[in-house]
């Protein structure tokens, strides 16, 4: 089937079998930041923003994104205002694989796009459903909050 959607601000027409997931289709089109973690909606490694909301693209059909705007981590890479936040999450993954980073980052981006000055609870809620398989410590919510506050007004 043919679907038409906007990926990272670019109108894109795609020919795909009806049962393909959005994560599969995005990866086929070169958006490798979208990871295959569990493929069941349980880890958040495949998170992308659809119309500004964080979703698990492994349990969403590409057809469900028809006419919608999809944003992947590739789109945020060059946005300098987001550097502080990126550093805070990268620091957390530090020497590890970093597989979980893009998904977490996008969930936080969706949060601050909606609530520029979130509380710790709102950050914890936005990150619930994300799994880091390498780092056993809790997510550095205080560092994330600090990064958000430092960059406030710049997003």
């Amino acid at each position, binding site marked *: 089937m043919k679907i038409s959607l906007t990926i990272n601000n670019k109108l894109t027409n795609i020919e795909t079998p*009806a049962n393909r997931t959005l994560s599969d289709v995005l990866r086929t089109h070169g958006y490798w930041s979208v990871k295959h973690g569990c493929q069941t*909606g349980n880890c958040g490694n495949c998170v992308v923003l659809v119309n500004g909301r*964080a979703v698990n693209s492994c349990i969403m059909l590409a057809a469900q994104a028809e006419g919608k705007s999809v944003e992947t981590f590739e789109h945020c890479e060059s946005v300098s205002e987001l550097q502080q936040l990126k550093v805070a999450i990268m620091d957390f993954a530090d020497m590890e694989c970093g597989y979980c980073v893009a998904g977490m980052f996008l969930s936080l981006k969706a949060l601050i796009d909606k609530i520029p000055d979130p509380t710790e609870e709102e950050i914890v809620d936005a990150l619930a459903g994300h799994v880091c398989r390498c780092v056993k410590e809790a997510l550095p919510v205080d560092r994330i909050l600090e990064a958000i506050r430092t960059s406030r007004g710049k997003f």
Partner: protein
Amino acid sequence: MLSNLKGYYHPKSIAEALALLEKNSGSILVIAGGTKLVQSQNDIVQELVDITTLPLNYIKKSNGTIRIGAVTPLQSLGGSPLLLDSVGHILADAALLSNHSQMIRNVSTVGGELVSSGPLSVLYCALLVLQGQVRIAGGEEFALPMNIFLNKKGLGGGLLVETVIPQLNEQTYSALAPIINNRGQIIICACARLTAKNGSCKDVKVAITGCPKVPQRLDGVEKQLEGQVMTEAHMSLAAEEAYEGCHPISDDLASEEYRKEVSRVVVKKALLSCLEQAEDDL
């Protein structure tokens, strides 16, 4: 994963959606958020009708009721001031408890959650005590009271289009009380709602999850508390009735015996939370 899916429709109206469902019945299904459907091992379904583009994403007030459109994402219930104002925290809390992941709540819908609710559905439990109704379109449009809806699974190829909840009056209080394990899974949850009238409990409604098929009302608790003075002692006594009235399931989260034992604990917590709200209002 939907290995035989070939067609996907984006109908522009409810009538168009119903016509598609009727014409191809058997191998065609509705898809809302898809959080349950997409990963199901269903090799019968060949076509899907996506209802998320229909004008069914809303929470609105009308004629003393709150109406929630079927494709409203669960996450929207969490942040709705209108809902808070009209029925208190209970529905927002229930929606948030439906799934701990915001990524899933952003997509899964009120309709999808209700159609696929099982014994542990907190949203369904909350709607039972709020005396919600669901409106089904298809053939004739009719409303089913919440407490028979899923026991019957009476959709018959129709579409759940709306949930309708009577607005609570000022002296009516509602609360839920879950037991959540250390992996964030809800083992059991009680919901309660009551009206304070001259210091007594009126119109008491109590329901609990963990019952076979879907959550159930606890008549024994309701009868015991109805008309009693609103005190902790009366609520504790009424909560004891939960033990007799509750016939829970066993699953890998907890045994029937455990759920039965704690049913009175969660019912008491939910009732006391209503009492606390009433006292705060005085």
